[in-house]
């Protein structure tokens, strides 16, 4: 597992994943009872990628962290999921009222040509409940321009 930092550290900001939004997202996840329960049995690295912008979050022991700026996804991570989408694909997912077939990762993966699970399909299935929960929390999180 790579080095970690509390949200909002020296991370590079991006339009698609603004630092303020990431801070809010991780705080909301940390406050979520269902996440805290599921997270106790989860060790997982989740990468959200959009062109040059990429954020990596590590979930371990019921806690969630953003990996420090400059860190890259490590193929040696035993449970690594990389979700890669265009700005339009991410925008369609990360909204409180998603359109049909844009309502979660599985829907986008099947029906959106600009979204893909580029690594960790088996890990995605294994950790599907917590990934869908995290993305649902992300969709409800304020701090991104819509």
């Amino acid at each position, binding site marked *: 597992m790579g080095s970690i930092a509390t949200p909002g550290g020296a991370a590079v900001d991006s339009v698609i994943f603004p630092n303020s939004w990431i801070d809010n997202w991780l705080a909301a996840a940390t406050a979520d009872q269902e996440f805290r329960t599921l997270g106790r049995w989860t060790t997982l690295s989740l990468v959200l990628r959009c062109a040059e912008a990429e954020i990596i979050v590590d979930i371990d022991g019921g806690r969630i962290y953003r990996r420090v700026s400059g860190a890259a996804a490590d193929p040696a991570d035993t449970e690594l999921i990389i979700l890669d989408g265009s700005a339009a694909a991410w925008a369609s997912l990360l909204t409180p*009222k*998603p359109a*049909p*077939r844009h*309502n*979660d*990762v*599985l*829907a986008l993966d*099947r*029906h959106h040509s600009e979204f893909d699970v580029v690594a960790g399909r*088996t890990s995605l*299935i*294994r950790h*599907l*409940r917590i990934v*869908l929960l995290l993305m649902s929390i992300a969709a409800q999180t304020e701090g991104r321009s819509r």
Partner: protein
Amino acid sequence: MKPTDNGSRIEPIVGRYLQVAIDNEPQRVYFEEAGQGPTLLCLHTAGADSRQYRHLLNDPEVTAHHRVIAFDLPWHGRSSPPDSWWQEEYLLTTDRYVATVEAVSDALGLRRPIVLGCSMAGSVVLELARRDPDRWGGVIGLSGAAKIPGRFQDWPMAPDINAQQVVPSWTSSLMAPASPEAARREIWWIYSQGGPGIYRGDTYFYSQDFDLRGHEHEIDTARCPVHLLTGEYDHACTPEMTEETIAAIPGATGGRMTEIGHFPMSENYPLFRHHLLPALRTMRTRDRTNA
């Protein structure tokens, strides 16, 4: 049933067990029913059970006109698997599925029931109508179509995957986010209680064995009316798939439902009933006229 002062009440649903031979194999099948009138026979989705119809069974506007029956397929809910179940890989086939519905209907002495099915059952109702149109008063298929690819997966049997949580999460993806959270979570809960490999075995029928393409025209809607509905958030059976099937069956009706996903009768019954009640009214009026 009249509520007491503290709000408690007994629901009008009654559950019983049926001993029935299906393909010459003895089965113990659980079913629930409520209401009186022409029978509405309800079929649950893959990997689930008849609890999905509890809202419909409690709807007096339906039960005033229909005897509503919902049963658990063998291997599901409170219906046992057959003897020596551990010696076979559970894979539901079209022939087995049709034989099951027909055997249960016959054993209960039903006469031309209207059949309502969702997901895999929304597809099998098409086959019921095709094979024996005079047996049924009509069929209503939810989230069904002539061909649904992509739902059969092997991972539910993988030892390093907790199917008790993954299967319900996999299927929860198909629901509309605006459907009430308590209802969506109840569907998740029911799915978490499926037997090992049962969801997988059901989707063998849904996505592998069943393929009506090219045979849609063989359904005679003059003898057995067909009404198909699919929610716009369903990304397993998309509304377009259902609309293609409707177009290929002469005389079939239906279409898409807004703000609903794959499990209309359980994820948002108050909204779904606005689609269901007119369809039921049309079918029972037509069957009464024909009788």
